């Protein structure tokens, strides 16, 4: 295992660790604004269109969405375990937890893909086959939001899965010294989870409280 050189901008390892952690938090702040803009636009229409928008929301697959929420939350728990066992300097335990995380993430993607295929069959995909005559223009706007929001989320999740898989490989083959990388990727993973926790009630649970 090679000794890693400290960049010239750092004086100590602790400083480097703090700096990259702050960097990740700053990056996550940008992601909050990125998804936040979409969510704000969604909320604007939810209030503006009222009942029509909620009627469209009821066409989402709440059972699959709920399963996916459980899957993602569990994956976050696995990620947290990976971080904590890695902090102790371990190799085997974190790798197993990371693999579990990635697999659960993949499960989310698969279920999401299945969900999208159902929506395609029901002619709910804007620009592809959305049945405007039957559902109305407002519903098409709702489903634009649905696909953009869940699609962007899935893209971020895929990136997370790649990062987690790479991390499992790097730790398992001893290419990575114990440091802040696991924690950083953990932060990213938890963030992607939190985005879903906002999207799920907004999109799936609208109007389903009675």
């Amino acid at each position, binding site marked *: 295992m090679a000794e890693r050189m400290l960049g010239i901008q750092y004086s100590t390892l602790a400083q480097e660790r703090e700096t990259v952690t702050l960097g990740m938090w700053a990056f996550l702040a940008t992601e909050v604004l990125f998804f936040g803009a979409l969510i704000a636009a969604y909320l604007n229409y939810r209030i503006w269109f009222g009942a029509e928008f909620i009627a469209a929301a009821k066409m989402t697959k709440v059972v699959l969405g709920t399963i996916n929420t459980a899957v993602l939350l569990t994956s976050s728990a696995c990620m947290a375990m990976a971080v904590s066992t890695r902090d102790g300097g371990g190799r085997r335990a974190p790798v197993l937890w990371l693999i579990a995380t990635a697999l659960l993430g993949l499960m989310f993607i698969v279920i999401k893909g299945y969900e999208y295929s159902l929506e395609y069959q029901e002619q709910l995909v804007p620009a592809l086959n959305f049945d405007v005559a039957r559902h109305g*223009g407002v519903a098409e706007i709702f489903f634009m939001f649905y696909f953009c929001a869940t699609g962007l989320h899935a893209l971020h999740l895929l990136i997370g899965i790649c990062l987690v898989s790479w991390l499992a490989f790097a730790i398992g083959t001893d290419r990575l010294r114990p440091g802040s990388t696991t924690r950083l990727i953990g932060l990213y993973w938890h963030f992607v989870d939190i985005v879903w926790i906002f999207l799920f009630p907004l999109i799936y649970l609208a109007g389903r409280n009675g």
Partner: protein
Amino acid sequence: MHGFPFWPATASAYARQIDFLFGSLLVIAGLTIAFVFFLLLFFANKYRHGSKADRHEPTKKTWRWEVGWTAATLVIFVGLAMWGGNLYVHLYNPPPSAVQIFIVGKQWMWKAQHPGGQREINELHVPAGQDIRLVMASQDVIHSFFIPALRIKQDVVPGRYETMWFRADKVGRYHLFCAEYCGTDHAHMGGWITVMEPRDFAEWLKAQGGQQTLAAQGEQLFHRYGCSGCHEPGGTVRAPNLNGVFGSPVPLSDGRVVVADERYVRDSILNPKAEVAAGYAPVMPTFAGQIGEDDLARLVAYIESIGPQPRGGGAH
């Protein structure tokens, strides 16, 4: 040669109020700029390197100055905000007796429809001293109806009505511009507002030739598009009777109450499922894509004319 024009034509009392506010802003800004420039030049000279000015130890109590000029600035700014806001609110309170003219903007022309049915393209004739309310729609992209002489403009957004009102009091011919970029001929999408003496205007109206009033044209459309089939008594489907509806509050099926203004009428024609009247089934078909803005204006004028208080919907 046109010389050096410094000030636009001023064709209404409101415009004069705007000019007064603008002039006051000019004075405030001018004094401030003069003061800043004076200080800069004065200090540049007095304290230039090598000058014999008195430079005793600079004051450490800077916060007195800071609080002072911050407070002064805030007071002036809040005053200006209130002044500008107050005049602006005036634009949102059209008198109920205003004569209503429908404007449709499309690439790249303005169409006007007077209540008497007279139509104009890129021109608008109005009588001096009369409150005029414009109800404006766009057929395609965002435009903006701008009359510099009256100091007013309003963006015209596709998919909704925008309104604007004025009372011109000076006879003359004034520029009309489109002020929101809308494509190739944006710079040519303009024309003229002609303010006439009321007598001359009445003659102008007559000279446009006999045509039905906007409301009468609307009534014909009301039958032609099949609206009367449901909305008149004895219709096949149970639909709200529209007599006396315009301008009144309408309870909706989702509990809200909206006022049946021109926006509501237009939206009900194009997207009837959005605001269904309470107690009625959402069975009205949509006419989106079938009725252009010109015809929508006629229908709105008709519905208004059978409302409880026709708001200038008749002839001038």
